[in-house]
C-alpha cells in the first residue's frame, strides 16, 4: 500500500514543521498535497479546511483527517492523522524534560522569532495562491469582503462566517448561476 505510506510520511513532515498554530499548516499542505503529490486540488483543500473549522478540536488534526479521508478513505484518514500527530508525540516524550529546564533560553527564542516571521509570509503566499480558484466572480468577492468585514469589525466566530457564507453562496448560486447554466428557470 504505497500510497498509505506516502500519506503517512507526507503528513509526518507537515506535522513536524507546523509551528505557530493550525493555519501555518496550510502552506505546507498546499506544497506537499497539491503541488508535489497532486493528490487534491487547491479548491478542494479549501473546502476541507472549511469543514475542519466547524469540527471541534485542533484544526491541524481535523484538516489532516479530512484530507486523508479524501485521498484514501478510512485508512487514508488514519495514516494522515497518525502522521501529523506523531512528530509532536515523539518530540514531547523525548524532549519535554529538557525543554522545561533549558527551554527558556535565547537561542530558541531567536529561532522562533525567525520562524514566526516566515510563517506570516507563507500564509500570505497561500492566500494569494487561493485567490484565483476561490474568488471567481463579483459575488464571491463580495462574500469574501463581507466576511472579512464581519470578522474584523464585529468579531464574529469563524463558524458563523462559514455558515453565513455558505447560505449566501447557496442563495446566489441557485438564483443566478444555476439558472444561467440551465438556460432558463433552473
Amino acid at each position, binding site marked *: 500500500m504505497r500510497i498509505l505510506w506516502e500519506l503517512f510520511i507526507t503528513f509526518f513532515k507537515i506535522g513536524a514543521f507546523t509551528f505557530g498554530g493550525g493555519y501555518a499548516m496550510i502552506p505546507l499542505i498546499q506544497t506537499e498535497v497539491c503541488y508535489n503529490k497532486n493528490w487534491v486540488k487547491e479548491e478542494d483543500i479549501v473546502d476541507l479546511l472549511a469543514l475542519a473549522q466547524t469540527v471541534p478540536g485542533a484544526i491541524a488534526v481535523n484538516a489532516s483527517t479530512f484530507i486523508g479521508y479524501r485521498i484514501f478513505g*478510512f485508512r487514508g484518514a488514519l495514516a494522515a492523522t497518525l502522521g501529523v500527530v506523531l512528530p509532536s508525540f515523539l518530540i514531547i516524550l523525548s524532549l519535554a524534560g529538557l525543554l*522545561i529546564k533549558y527551554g527558556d533560553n535565547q537561542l530558541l527564542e531567536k529561532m522562533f522569532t525567525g520562524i514566526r*516571521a516566515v510563517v506570516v509570509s507563507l500564509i500570505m503566499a497561500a*492566500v494569494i495562491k487561493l485567490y484565483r480558484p476561490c474568488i471567481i466572480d463579483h459575488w464571491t468577492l463580495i462574500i469574501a469582503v463581507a*466576511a472579512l468585514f464581519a470578522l474584523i469589525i464585529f468579531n464574529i466566530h469563524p463558524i458563523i462566517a462559514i455558515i453565513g457564507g455558505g447560505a449566501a453562496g447557496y442563495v446566489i448560486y441557485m438564483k443566478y448561476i444555476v439558472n444561467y447554466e440551465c438556460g432558463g428557470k433552473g
Partner: protein
Amino acid sequence: MIPLIQKEIEVNNWLTAQQFIDIIAVAETTPGPIAVNSATFVGFKVAGFYGSLVSTIGVVFPTFIIVLLLSKAVNKFNSHPVMRGLLYGIRPVVVSLILLAAIFVGKTVLISATGFMGLDWISILIAGAAFIGVYKFKLHPILLIVLAAISGVILY
C-alpha cells in the same frame, strides 16, 4: 482548549500550577497543536509512556470519529447542486479567514515596542525574503522554515 485542560488537571490533581505553565510554554514551542502536545505531556507526567499514549489517542479520537462521519456525509452529496452552492459561498469566506490569520500573526511578529518606528525590521526583512522565496522562487516551506530559524539566530 487550554481552559478545559486546566480544569481537568485541577480536578484530578495531575500537575502543579507551575508544571502546567511550563507545559503550555513547551507545547507552544514544539511543532503541532497545543492541545495534542499538552495531552501528551500530561499523560506522560501522570502515567509514563502509556499515559502519554492514552491521552494523545484520547484527545484525537472524538475528532477523528466526527470527521469520518462528516466526510462520509459530505462525499455522498458532493455533486449535488446544494453542495456546490454552499461551497461556492464557503470558499471566499475561508480565503478571508486565512488572510485574517496572516494579519493576526503578522501583527504579533512585525510590530515591536522597541523597534524603530514601532516595527521589528529584522522580522520584516526575514518575512520579505521568505515571501520572495516562496512566491517567486517557489522554495519549499520547510526549507524556508529552517532558514528562518538560522536567520533568527544570526540576525537577532
